[in-house]
């Protein structure tokens, strides 16, 4: 298990252009597999255009207490990119006026941003219908100052979405690090104890599953049943929905795919599973992603590849929803990850 980000290791893949080159070379350049653009055109879906904006996703920083092997953010304790209070002020202006019904905070571990609680309190006042915080669970056990997070989330009616790669210890720790499973179980129990995730509770607790290896997620509903049964029987834990998310071939997951000689096979799996029905609801069509330094992207993955929105407006300080909605979505071959099988988004399957 690595303990540093690609960036801190000076790994070549920390360079986003290098990643984009890999995604456009070899099997794609040689014509073995079609470029995503051509595949979209084949289904009459190119260029990809946004629908109504529904979700504003804000990445408040890449710092994290974990260094997960598959992380598309290349997050970790050594990452210093953290959203400042000034940028948060800019975000709040947008949150107060946006037509989006969902606000989605992500990271890194968003809770590690020193202004996280202030930002949540201010944003909650805007009366957003669905206010999500993506929490990695272990952060709640990482330090005493985070122990009251469940109560804090409850106070602001936060919808907690947490990662849980498997209901067994071995698989979870292999992907996320030793001890992650036990800490996650403790955190889930804590969330349950304040009312999160219980049947019929309005305090939403959803789990995110993403495969721990070079394979696609199976049927989301079937996985949810398995997770629910195992977590209930073994630990008496309740949660609401399971989101099955496909690992996209970028950043640390791309590094893993190449190092384990699974890259080509994985890209074949993604392309073979291409589903035009998933394109209809792919998340970049209803989401905007804001980076820690205020730049705007079609999704969190494009953010990590530094592919900014193709619009007159590029930054939160110039935010203009109608201008932004009139744009073509920036794509590359990583996008096959969101259109494979039942599709994949930060809210799980899309078909």
């Amino acid at each position, binding site marked *: 298990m690595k303990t540093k980000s690609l960036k801190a290791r000076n790994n070549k893949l920390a360079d986003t252009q290098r990643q984009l080159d890999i995604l456009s070379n070899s099997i794609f350049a040689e014509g073995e597999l079609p470029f995503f653009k051509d595949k979209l055109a084949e289904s009459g879906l190119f260029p990809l255009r946004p629908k109504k904006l529904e979700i504003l996703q804000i990445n408040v920083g890449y710092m994290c207490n974990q260094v997960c092997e598959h992380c598309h953010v290349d997050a970790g304790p050594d990452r210093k990119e953290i959203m400042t209070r000034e940028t948060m002020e800019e975000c709040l202006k947008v949150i107060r006026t946006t037509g989006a019904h969902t606000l989605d905070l992500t990271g890194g571990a968003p809770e590690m941003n020193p202004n996280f609680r202030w930002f949540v309190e201010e944003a909650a006042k805007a009366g957003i219908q669905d206010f999500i915080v993506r929490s990695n669970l272990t952060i709640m056990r990482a330090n005493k100052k985070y122990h009251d997070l469940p109560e804090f989330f409850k106070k602001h009616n936060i919808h907690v979405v947490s990662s849980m790669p*498997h209901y*067994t210890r071995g*698989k979870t720790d292999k992907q996320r690090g030793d001890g992650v499973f036990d800490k996650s179980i403790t955190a889930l129990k804590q969330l349950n104890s304040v009312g999160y995730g219980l049947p019929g509770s309005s305090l939403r607790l959803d789990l995110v*599953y993403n*495969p721990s*290896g070079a*394979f*696609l*997620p*199976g*049927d989301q509903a*079937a*996985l949810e049943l*398995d*997770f629910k049964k195992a977590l209930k029987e073994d630990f008496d834990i309740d949660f609401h929905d399971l989101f099955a998310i496909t690992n996209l071939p970028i950043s640390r997951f791309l590094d893993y795919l190449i190092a384990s000689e699974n890259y080509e*096979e994985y890209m*074949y799996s993604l392309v*073979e599973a291409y589903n035009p029905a998933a394109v209809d609801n792919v998340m970049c069509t209803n989401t905007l992603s804001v980076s820690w330094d205020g730049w705007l992207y079609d999704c969190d993955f494009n953010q990590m590849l530094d592919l900014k929105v193709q619009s007159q407006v590029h930054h939160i300080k110039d935010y203009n929803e109608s201008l932004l909605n009139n744009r073509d979505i920036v794509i590359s071959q990583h996008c096959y990850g969101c259109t494979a099988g039942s599709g994949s988004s930060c809210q799980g399957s899309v078909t």
Partner: protein
Amino acid sequence: MAKSYYDPADLRKFGNITEWSEELGTKFFDYYGKVFEEGALSAREKSLIALAVAHVVKCPYCIDAYTKDGLQRGITKEEMMEAVHAGAAIESGATLVHGVQMMNKYNKLSM
């Protein structure tokens, strides 16, 4: 021609068998797809049966395919290995039960 009998990339070409016999190929793949749908047995249970049979018939393509399928379904390595043992036990049992035939013949021929 390839220098080995098995090439992992050939698995992706499985569908090509239909090109030389469209009717039979199509019928086979329709049947195959139907077999693995949810039924009285779950798709998960059928995946484990397929994995066990893949080992018994020693098909490297099927072993690759159903190990990956199992991972996708969240099937654990312990469950997969138990399935392989179930297949192996039947296979070795099938050999050993012929021992009775050997004993019968031995006894018949012996004074």
